[in-house]
């Protein structure tokens, strides 16, 4: 095995923009947020204040008392001299200069003017709404926000006609319009800088004052990429086990409200509404002096510095050949994912639903309903994830087949079946979600245990074999491998939540008995399961053959069958009947 990878078999790394020597990436325009109300770094809407050369506008928005007829795009100034663009000699600018220095400009020099319409490529948009009455048509100016979006849709380098009018006290346009022909200003010069017409301070003039006001107080919240909504809290549970670290982002599992007031008290988890979050967040004004207490966040976890990265340790010997890797994917990993998904689903159906506890049980155990909802959500999430992994293992296989990596004479065949031993020992693979079983699930998914090692071997093989694999294969293997840690965390938390009921497991467990393969009550469920498997099989085969419509039809069929199956399985479970999932493969055992 090579000491270092000779060539990584992965999609090309993203072409991240590079800052100049000495600058952090957070100085790049790519690090700033581009939607502005009013923005974080600066307000790009300010560019449109001067969208038309020679003119300056403002986008008057309605305040709480409502419209008064002056809302819309108000002309602040019309002047050629203060706009450096007219120093350039271009035909359209020369013509516009003549208009502004002539009668049109003179008219705009007095009175109050509003942008009435814009026209480009023959399409004229009036910046008014119309209300038709029996004896009148009333024009209501759109407010500044609406007009701004229309103006934002003007194309550069295309002829543009605008008309301005004055208004009567009710907001109706009056008098003769002033019509100007020109173009929208280009907002970057040839060196990539905003033109000189935007004076220092203009691009930030509309930002909040002080900046901390909006940082805390904006109802839209801010851009999560620079101002997170939720972050992961500190690590709880086992730390430092093989393959994990306290610095590892994936360890944290509790969502915290990032804007919460820092203090000596324990952090509470992030709530689902702004109203619920409000009492624990920094107050207005308070933020002005305490914003530096806010935490930096890396990989979703609060930190004050860049954590060390984990070594990419090979936890298992890489495959000697690609053929061996393919064999392992077909006979072990794909069936293992399928088996785990079924086992987890069986455990899920063995748990009581949140509507099952009696009133008396809820009185005695106030968190029981929430605990059941949470644990069922965790286990379902892992089961669905395992099914996704089975799909991805198949995708890796058909990609290897299509790219010529299969042994001579062989090609991809869908793998949608359980492990042979699961078929033989269905009774022991399918067990209710007792605390003992949940602990076994924790152990299965524990980092560095068997499943993790299996994928680490695949990752190593793809990484270390000189490059001949299709783009993205390596990343996909990494994704499957890294998901395992989240499965581990979810089962660990499910076990911890239910452990408080260890003396009364009947509070969370249904009295579910695994039915025999020939039990008539599960016949429909098994039929649905067989349908799911067949449709999934067909879907993978079609996809491998590049028949995307066929694949889509099959997979939608599989998904619909899954919903029916889930409903059937829940109904049976409420009757205490567990489905013998693996009975659908009697002949293979």
């Amino acid at each position, binding site marked *: 095995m090579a000491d270092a990878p000779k060539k990584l078999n992965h999609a090309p790394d993203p072409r991240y923009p590079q800052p100049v020597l*000495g600058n*952090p990436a957070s100085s*790049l325009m790519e*690090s700033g947020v*581009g*939607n*502005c109300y009013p923005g*974080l770094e*600066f307000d*790009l809407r300010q560019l449109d204040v001067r969208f038309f050369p020679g003119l300056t506008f403002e986008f*008057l928005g309605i305040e709480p*008392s409502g419209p008064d007829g002056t809302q819309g795009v108000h002309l602040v100034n019309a002047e050629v001299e203060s706009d450096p663009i007219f120093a350039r000699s271009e035909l359209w600018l020369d013509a516009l200069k003549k208009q502004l220095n002539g009668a049109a400009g003179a008219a705009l020099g007095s009175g109050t003017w509003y942008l009435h319409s814009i026209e480009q490529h023959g399409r*004229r*948009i009036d910046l008014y709404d119309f209300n038709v009455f029996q004896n009148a048509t009333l024009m209501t100016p759109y407010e500044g*926000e609406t007009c701004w979006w*229309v103006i934002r849709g*003007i194309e550069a380098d295309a002829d543009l006609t605008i008309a301005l009018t004055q208004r009567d006290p009710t907001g109706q346009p009056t008098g003769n319009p002033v019509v100007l022909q020109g173009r929208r200003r280009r*907002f970057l010069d040839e060196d*990539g*800088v*905003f033109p*000189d017409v935007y004076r*220092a301070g*203009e*691009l*930030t*003039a509309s930002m909040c*004052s*002080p900046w901390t006001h*909006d940082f805390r107080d904006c*109802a839209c*919240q801010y851009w999560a990429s620079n101002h*997170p*909504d*939720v972050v992961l809290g500190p690590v709880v549970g086992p730390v430092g086990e093989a393959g994990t670290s306290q610095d590892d*982002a994936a360890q944290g*599992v509790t*969502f915290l409200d990032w804007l919460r007031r820092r203090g000596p008290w324990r952090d509470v988890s*992030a709530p*689902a*509404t702004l109203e619920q979050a*409000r009492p624990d967040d920094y107050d207005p004004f308070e933020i*002005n002096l305490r914003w*530096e207490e806010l935490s*930096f*966040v890396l990989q979703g976890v609060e930190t004050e510095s*860049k954590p060390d990265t984990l070594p990419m340790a090979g936890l298992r010997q890489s495959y000697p050949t690609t053929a061996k890797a393919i064999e392992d994917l077909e006979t072990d990993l794909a069936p293992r994912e399928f088996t785990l998904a079924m086992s987890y689903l069986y455990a899920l159906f063995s748990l009581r639903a949140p509507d099952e506890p009696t009133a008396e049980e809820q009185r005695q155990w106030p968190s029981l309903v929430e605990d059941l909802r*949470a644990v069922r*959500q965790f286990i379902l*999430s892992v089961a669905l994830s395992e099914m996704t992994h089975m799909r991805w293992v198949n995708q890796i296989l058909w*990609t290897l087949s299509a790219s*010529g990596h299969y042994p001579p004479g062989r090609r991809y065949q869908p793998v949608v079946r359980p492990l042979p031993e699961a078929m033989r020992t269905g009774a022991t693979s399918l067990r209710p979600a007792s605390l003992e079983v949940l602990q076994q699930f924790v152990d299965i998914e524990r980092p560095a245990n068997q499943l993790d090692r299996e*994928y680490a071997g695949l990752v190593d093989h793809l990484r270390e074999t000189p490059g001949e*694999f299709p783009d*993205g294969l390596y990343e996909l293997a*990494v*994704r499957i491998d890294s998901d395992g840690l989240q499965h581990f965390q979810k089962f660990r*938390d499910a076990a911890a939540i239910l452990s408080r009921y260890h003396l009364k497991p009947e509070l969370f467990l249904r009295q579910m008995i695994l039915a025999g393969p020939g039990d008539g009550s599960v016949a429909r469920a098994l039929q649905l399961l067989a349908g799911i498997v067949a449709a999934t099989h067909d879907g993978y085969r079609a*996809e491998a053959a*590049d028949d995307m419509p066929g694949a889509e039809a099959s997979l939608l069929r599989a998904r619909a069958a899954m919903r029916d199956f889930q409903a059937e399985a829940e109904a049976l479970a409420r009757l205490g009947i567990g489905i013998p999932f693996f009975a659908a493969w009697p002949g293979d055992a």
Partner: protein
Amino acid sequence: MSDPQKPCACSTAADQPCAPWCGRPPGQGRVVGLYFDPPMAIARVGSSPEPMDAYDWTFDKNPHRGVQTKIRATRSLQLESGRGDGHWPHRLVIKEPGEIAFKDARGRIRPVAPFFELWARVQDDDGSILAVPVTRAFLEARKASLRDLVFTVDAANRKAQSRTKLASCAAVAHVVFAGDSFKRHSLDAISPRSYGEVPLVRPDAPLPLGHVQTFLPNGEGWSCHTRLDQVRLRFTPGSGATFGPPDATTAMASPRPPGDFEPALTEYGRNHAMTRPENRILTPGTAWSGFNFRTGNTPKWPTPQDSYDGSREGAGGSWGTIDNTCDLIIQAALTIDGRVLRAKARSFAGPPDFAPDRRPMYSIRDELDDRELPPPEPHPETTPEEILDLFRRIFETASLVNLDQRRSWALAGNAGILGAAGPDEPDWDHGLSPRLGPKTMRADDAPYAELTPDYTPGQDDTRVSTSGPNDRLPYTQVVQQVHARMAESMVLREFLARRPDRVRRIVRPPFARVADLPARVGVQKPAAVPVGKWDKPESEGGTPRRASPDDPPRYRDPRNVMDITYDMRMPPFMRHSMGVPLSITRRHYDLLMAYLDKLETDKSWRDAALVAEGGPHHG
């Protein structure tokens, strides 16, 4: 021109090719222009005297974390006193990458203080133009010196001015210095005024907007990749503190949620200091103190209007506070052969980037590209990568969004706009698709909702999700789980190829170009926007199909109320400019749609997934 293969003075760049200008005589060629690199840069506030070290974005492939963007320390530039006593003039030295610390030992945030490199465009006798760094040697070879290089920096904070419409409420700094003045030039701002006007910021108590500095040339250990003899200017922003008049001391904070105007409960809010005593230096009694966006009940700009301290408490009067952020214009002027050459750059002092390894999916660069660049054409070599990067950025943003909170907020807004009896009425939006009420993202929201109901079976059709310490923001979990997958190249490409109609439906279109809008909403028909869907590959003579009534709309109309309500189309429940639902940019949208069309109709685009780096393998 220098031979790129030829060894040059760079002894430290064995693994990197030399710059095209490396080894070239400094006097060669005629100077035709100057420019700064970067032309525009974001500075970020922090009160620490130690600026933030350098880092870049890189791709983490650790199997335990999954592939994702992370930050990586790179070489920083550190100041070293030229006199050895810690004071100016300073030269720059390389600080090798180490741990990235965002705060100093006292917990103060380290500011981002960007460097701007000065470059010249030089034309050789053969007509070719090359960029070369401006250095002392470069200037001397042209009979000029650093002293002949004049820097002018204009910085301003016009936040109060933009509300009061009075220049006397602006804070403006203007400094001019020569290239051999290596001291710190403070950007101490004052308010401009004419006779009779009261300045918000007085000359005897200026507002500190930061400082700019240039550096002694450093020729030690020279390499064309570091160029420490190149002329550089650094802007260090202000601390980010709040300043106010003497009465801006303490105030009762509204206990209401953000965006809530009702002042009724203000008296029950907590009392907080809003400025430090030493920052109460602004003039009391100006138009900014007591400014009120409600005055006169007239429409106003800028919006949102409640964007100053004091707007949400009591009657809404301003406390007269401003901060020491700014945006600035940097200019370098050099006279050579009687001709003045100028370079310009801009910088903007913004808040810290608190999640620096999570990139915006809609960045400033995206917005500028959307405004300035022509419509994109799909290309097999670049489009897959560009779309993948977009989805990676979507994941990076989505991974920190509280989708449960966004959803409950947006649905309440919808109910207000459309006159629902109450935001929690379960079926107030009956008949609408996509749903706008509590059934959004639930089974009744089909065909928009697919996975989310399956992944959240414990949720009912409620506006506020059921979330406790254990089940932890169910919608937030789903968005993270789903978008983590979409950040994988194979998963994404397969999904787009297999489910193009799903993507066409679920991605919220951007607002239209002027030419695509109907003249009157609901009266004229909108322009027929080509959907780009090809009947067969372009190489086989295919033609793009025109839109049919069955196609999902390819744009939104800002005048149409249904286009400014929030539904679950992607990105869900997030806010765009001017407070309407967010979409990706028009450029990204058009490129994504074109890519879907290619994947759907052209096998060669789908086969790209199966081509190894070294070409197809036939084993």
